[in-house]
């Protein structure tokens, strides 16, 4: 299960809405081993594409080093799908490389309602998990 604060939940959705129709992406860091998402880090989508995302490589190096220095890890890795459902695509599954992370997908295909779902992706297997938003 992913437990996430209301504030962070809203920030992910706001980022996805702001970048629509391109895919938005980012990380929520938390203390290593805690499984607690705490620090919101929106990332640039280097692809600026409605169907693909990739973290900018130099921004990723900077953010990953910063997390390392603070003894944090990527607790959540999120991105948006802008015309399809919030379910990992084959592309998402083949590139997933952080087995400890919650992979959050939001779909902005519907203007009024945002789908927000979370998955574990490890060794090519996808497992959806419940999302609990804490107030």
């Amino acid at each position, binding site marked *: 299960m992913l437990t996430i604060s209301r504030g962070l939940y809203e920030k992910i959705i706001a980022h996805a809405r702001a970048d629509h129709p391109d*895919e938005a*992406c980012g*990380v929520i860091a938390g203390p290593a081993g805690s499984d607690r998402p705490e620090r919101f880090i929106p*990332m640039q989508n280097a*692809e600026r*594409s*409605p*169907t*693909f*995302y*990739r*973290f900018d*490589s*130099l921004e*990723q*190096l900077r953010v*990953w080093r910063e997390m390392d220095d603070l003894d944090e890890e990527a607790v959540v*890795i999120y*991105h948006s*799908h*802008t*015309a*399809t459902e919030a379910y*990992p*695509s*084959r*592309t*998402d599954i*083949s*590139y*997933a*490389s*952080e*087995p*400890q992370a919650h992979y959050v997908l939001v779909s902005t295909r519907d203007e009024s309602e945002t789908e927000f779902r979370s998955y574990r992706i490890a060794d090519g297997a996808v497992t959806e998990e419940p999302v609990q938003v804490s107030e």
Partner: protein
Amino acid sequence: MAIEVRIPTILRSYTGGAKAVQGSGGTLGELLINLDAAHGGLRERLVDGENLRRFVNVYLNDEDVRFLGGLETPVSDGDTVTVLPAVAGGSAST
């Protein structure tokens, strides 16, 4: 003297769990061949034929080696090489 290579969590099965290993070579390509002797299989995860794999980022100090010279990038003692899997995906299926 050696070059430090920082290994991401997902590849530490090749390094006995170590976060960083040491190697030597005059270019990144030579360094990866050198590392493979002690950490068999690691190079294969980073290199496909003559090129770096597309969804692996390799940095020399603070630079992405794609913008330097790829596997031909010169490296020297005291440098740090960092490997990070690219974070990528999207709704397009490939």
